[in-house]
């Protein structure tokens, strides 16, 4: 079995999943770092993901669309807060409007990924915490969301041009 442990903390609204892969750490890192690979596992089979922006640097953004069987799409975004290839990646994951603007009224998730070499393979720990609006407000104060809107605007400008 790939998943070796699951810890649920209802009080802290935190889920920690530990998995072991029979693959080198660099290859597991690529699952996150290569947008073409990321889109093959991020969304469920019923809602495959298309990643149209992918910048895994601190402050960088990832934008994606999940496409449902009924033609409905859900837009999502990441804001990267920490990255250290190939061992750690932290980001905030949230919903976006159809134009890519982050929706701050809806809950977001703070995700921490840790990779380690383990028994000739790789151990991956993913900690997901449902974030509060207060966290989002802090993110907004830091200007992180403005930057995001800007980069989306630039993308749109490129598409028009």
């Amino acid at each position: 079995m790939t998943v070796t442990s699951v810890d649920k903390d209802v009080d802290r609204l935190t889920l920690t999943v530990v998995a072991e892969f029979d693959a080198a750490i660099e290859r597991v890192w690529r699952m996150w770092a290569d947008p073409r690979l990321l889109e093959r596992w991020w969304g469920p089979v019923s809602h495959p993901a298309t990643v149209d922006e992918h910048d895994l640097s601190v402050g960088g953004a990832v934008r994606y669309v999940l496409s449902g069987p009924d033609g409905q799409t859900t837009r999502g975004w990441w804001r990267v807060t920490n990255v250290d290839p190939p061992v750690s990646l932290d980001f905030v994951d949230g919903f976006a409007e159809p134009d890519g603007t982050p929706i701050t009224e809806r809950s977001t998730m703070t995700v921490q990924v840790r990779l380690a070499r383990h028994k000739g393979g790789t151990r991956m720990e993913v900690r997901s915490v449902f974030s509060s609006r207060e966290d989002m407000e802090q993110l907004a104060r830091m200007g992180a969301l403005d930057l995001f809107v800007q980069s989306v605007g630039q993308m749109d400008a490129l598409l028009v041009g």
Partner: protein
Amino acid sequence: MVVGVSADEAVDGLFHALADATRRDIVRRCLRGESSVSQLAAAYPMSFAAVQKHVAVLERAGLVSKERRGREQLVRTDVDAVRRARRALDQLETAWRGRVDRMARLLAEVPDPDASAPSRGRRR
């Protein structure tokens, strides 16, 4: 984000409501038995108005209900709502198990770049 978990607006409100330490404490306190808003206000180092605001957020999320009895407003936790939070975490677990499975399958499928010839272009 996870489709079917947070896509549910009601669950969104639930998580927002529970994402604050004071509000979590109010939920715990009022699970053991109802408390008046003034009793709650006495328990936290914040104003009556601030506690009232927290209770309002919890009420909107359906985590507590408020009942007026005389001059007192009694707050009680809705056990079903706490179960909903638990269920949302269960769904998140299912989502991550799926992701891990797909990653494992993909790792088995995509050739090891060190073990084989360099790939010719990436597949979409």
